[in-house]
């Protein structure tokens, strides 16, 4: 039995199912559930409760959710590390686990651990051999990837001496050793500094430009807004929303931010408006439905100059919080 899936929010296609059949689906989860039995009394813990979604060829797909939402468990089921209690997971049209499909998928686990006694070159050579890459090609690819992830300088250093960011980079490099069509990254930005995060974000975009499909999980929302074609939001083991960001986010203006310089002589604020903290310029937030034009005219008449007017629409963070709160209620 297929669980009712959240509506696929995409203006280009009427429903998720129609989209999936019309386009090339590379990863599919269908009513996937996972229940763990924990502790001495084998207490049931439902980590994933009927998640269904598809990832299509060539897209960058963000898998979002708060901590403990079931993201990693779902990704591990797609990678064949965990067996679903029920439901079906497919990779490249084959039931997971399938060796031919695995050959075309690269995976970075969450907080990756590697063989610390190996050097990056040895580790990438090992990863390449597991992907059936011939020895000469392994050396060439390891060279390229070490440069690509910025670890050229550390190629002879054992992994035990790597920082968290460097480990994340070598983790991404090992995921790419088999030159996969699909790249699955579990929390690739976790623990990275802003520069490291930007590098990983750029790498994801680069992979997308190369035509690779990228599925990555995260709870760092600005990164998702900058990189993803589509997102799925999972909360409490259930899929809450899936679709294109533009379609998921409400187009309604939530408020309008106005910056004035100098301040008007008589600052008559509409009901519900508030002054935002700050020095120098006067920053105001007008609530939804306020007559912004009338306020601006009055402000100009009072001698104010208008620096900026920014309508604030629903952000991914608003949506994320809304979904998480709805679940709690």
């Amino acid at each position: 039995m297929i669980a009712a899936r959240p509506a696929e929010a995409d203006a280009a296609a009427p429903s998720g199912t129609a989209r999936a059949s019309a386009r090339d689906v590379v990863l599919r989860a269908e009513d996937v559930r996972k229940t763990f039995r924990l502790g001495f009394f084998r207490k049931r813990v439902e980590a994933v409760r009927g998640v269904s979604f598809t990832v299509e060829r060539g897209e960058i797909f963000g898998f979002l959710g708060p901590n403990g939402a079931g993201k990693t468990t779902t990704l591990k089921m797609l990678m064949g590390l965990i067996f679903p209690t029920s439901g079906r997971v497919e990779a490249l049209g084959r039931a997971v686990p399938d060796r031919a499909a695995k050959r075309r998928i690269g995976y970075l686990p969450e907080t990756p651990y590697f063989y610390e006694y190996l050097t990056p070159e040895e580790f990438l050579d090992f990863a390449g051999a597991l992907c059936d890459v011939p020895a000469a090609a392994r050396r060439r690819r390891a060279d390229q990837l070490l440069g690509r992830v910025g670890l050229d300088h550390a190629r002879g250093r054992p992994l035990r001496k790597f920082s968290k960011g460097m480990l994340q980079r070598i983790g991404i490099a090992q995921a790419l050793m088999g030159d996969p069509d699909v790249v699955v990254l579990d929390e690739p930005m976790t623990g990275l500094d802003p520069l490291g995060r930007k590098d990983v974000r750029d790498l994801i975009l680069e992979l997308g430009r190369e035509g690779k499909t990228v599925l990555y999980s995260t709870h760092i929302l600005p990164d998702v807004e900058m990189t993803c074609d589509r997102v799925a939001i999972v909360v409490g083991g259930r899929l809450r929303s899936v679709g294109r960001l533009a379609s998921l986010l409400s187009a309604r203006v939530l408020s309008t931010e106005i910056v004035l310089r100098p301040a008007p002589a008589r600052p008559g604020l509409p009901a519900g408006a508030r002054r935002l903290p700050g020095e120098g310029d006067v920053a105001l937030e007008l609530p939804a439905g306020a007559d912004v034009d009338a306020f601006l005219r009055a402000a100009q008449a009072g001698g104010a100059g208008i620096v900026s007017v920014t309508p604030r629409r629903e952000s991914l963070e608003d949506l994320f919080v809304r979904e998480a709160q709805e679940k709690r209620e």
Partner: protein
Amino acid sequence: MRRIAAVARNTFREAARNKILYSLLFFALALIASALALGQLSVHEERRMIRDVGLFGVDVFSVLIAIFVGVNLLYKELALKTVYTILPKPIARWEFVLGKWLGVMATLVAQIVVMGVAVAVTSWFESGSEAVDAALVKALWLLLMNVTIVTSVAMLFSSFSSPFLSGLFSLGVFVVGRSVPDVRVLAERVGGAPGRVLSAGCAVLPNLHLFTPSGSAIAGQHITVHAGPFVGASYLAWTSLYAIGYSTVVLGLAMLIFRRRDFV
């Protein structure tokens, strides 16, 4: 084959960079070398003493190394979560287990060769070149077959238990396995249900006594590693088959357990 070889090579590399294994090897070599001093204390039995102490060192330390490496093998992969990076690659879980086992076996072969050479050099130093004979090589081969089984058993326990418990169980299997002929005699004497339990235990547990036959009677003949041809080719062949067969079954069980595991 490339994937299995890659895992085996990596396992061997891990062992080769493990300082604890070098410490064990150092103690083994020290024990073997001490046989020279012990030989001096015995009267006209230098050659026998050196061979006994040397082979004892190889036996004990190869088993210790097999258990130490074997019980940590799969457990460490799970505890350190390195398995999360490996298994999503196009490698079957059974290939991974087999690769790990082959890697440990390569380590043990290297260790036994080093220790065997040490025994040979010590014997040669004390008694000349005739002290290094086929019997010594055969005894080393049997000890290698012995650790083949011990490693597989340790790996089986390691697939579902902690290293401490796995080590304890493996050591138990080794001790009882070495005493199988004595346990059989005990089972006959005790009789009844306890005797049947002991007999069943002997049937299930590996008969590791087969790999230290010196001093036993085989086919009505008393054999010793110190004189004569020791054991014949047929004995070596069937005990090797027994070791490989037993290891295959035990390793198969480890693969079955590993096959259905969730890596949470």
